């Protein structure tokens, strides 16, 4: 087997795993810090809670998969089924995006963030099958105070 391939796989696994662990620790810490402000999805067709001011807040993050994840998912492509390795990437993206939105809202002085929506898009060319495999997750909502 190609030595370069093995090196890339090892770098992807060890570095990717380390960074992912650090990121999750960071996310959990910040989630605990901001837990006092509710983030809710209602507000689109319901009446908003009584408030003096409202403002839009948007948090966005781009997360990339590592080489190991890409190879594991290409194997998964052959047999089908749940792409377990990408679940953590998406989870990191969603939670990080919500946190960024929430942190902005808190610094503005929001008592809660309503009507929160999440959107995901892929970045990078998917046709060649090589190159960047990254997702952008955007969270936006209305902060009220």
């Amino acid at each position, binding site marked *: 087997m190609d030595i370069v391939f093995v090196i890339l796989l090892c770098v992807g696994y060890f570095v990717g795993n380390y960074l992912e662990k650090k990121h999750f620790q960071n996310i959990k810490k910040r989630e605990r810090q901001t*837990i006092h402000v509710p983030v809710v999805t209602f507000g689109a067709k319901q009446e908003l809670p009584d408030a003096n001011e409202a403002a839009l807040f948007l948090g966005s993050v781009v997360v990339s998969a590592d080489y*190991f994840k890409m190879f*594991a998912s290409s194997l*998964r492509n052959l*047999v089908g089924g749940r792409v*377990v*390795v990408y679940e953590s990437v998406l*989870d990191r993206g969603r939670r990080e995006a919500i946190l960024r939105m929430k942190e902005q809202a808190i610094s503005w002085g929001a008592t809660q963030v309503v009507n929160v929506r999440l959107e995901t898009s892929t970045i990078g060319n998917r046709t060649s099958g090589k190159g960047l495999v990254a997702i952008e997750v955007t969270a936006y909502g209305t902060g009220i105070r």
Partner: protein
Amino acid sequence: MVYKPKEIPEDINVTSVHPLINFAYLLGTVAVVSTLIYVVLGAIATQLATRISPEMEAKIGQQLVSDLAKKDKKVDAKQQQYLDSLLADLQKSDSSSYTPLTIHIQKSPVSNAAILPGGHILITATLLAEAESENELAFVLAHELGHHVARDHLKGLGRSLVFLTVASMLGIGSGDANVVGMTGSLTNLHYSRQQESAADVYALNAIVRCYGHGNASLDFFNRIQTEQKDPRGKLSSYFSTHPLTQQRINDLHQIASQRGWKMEGDITNLPDKIFDEEPNSKSNQES
């Protein structure tokens, strides 16, 4: 409504499985399935090689030869007729397995002969030009005939036989780029040592039945043996697809003496100047 802060539970959106275990499982699945396909294809190919119907084989052969026929230059009717009758004589000696065979003379700078599915024998003009007697030419033909009778040409195709069969069953592949690419490698088929010696014995047997002796029939191989050291030698191409050692020549002589085949006798000459090369192509090869 009162908001009660709660910590977000883990492991809802992320499956708690170690990435390496997941990876090992995937790798194992892919490896097992590919091995299975490889083994099954091999088994099917072996079954096909021994059981394929003559009609199917002819179809596959047609598919392979249709590309080659375009490359053929105009065939000398006299040469073709002579080779056909020579082959017919050889086949007559073995009445057990008669199938119609077609000889294709190919213009090529290399000296080689091969058998394709469907009873198509390819023989290059260079090999014909180098033949010094009918006996040695007959041996080359009989050797390929031996491969045909033993179905070595089908076995040699290996797993691609399955794809060729499916392609010709579906009626696709003729003129297809893949098949054209394959025909290039068809003349480079490698047979096992056992298959080669079996074809040799078959050939010598046919020669002895046809001419009453095996004299001069091995001249062609003897010449390869001496030319083999020169990598530029034209005969070395035949050598590359028909690995020939002194051992094999010795074995043939041994078998001949065991079975009481005469190795002495009158040499049959080729018809006058029938395979002489055109002067211009000759000068090209000398340079």
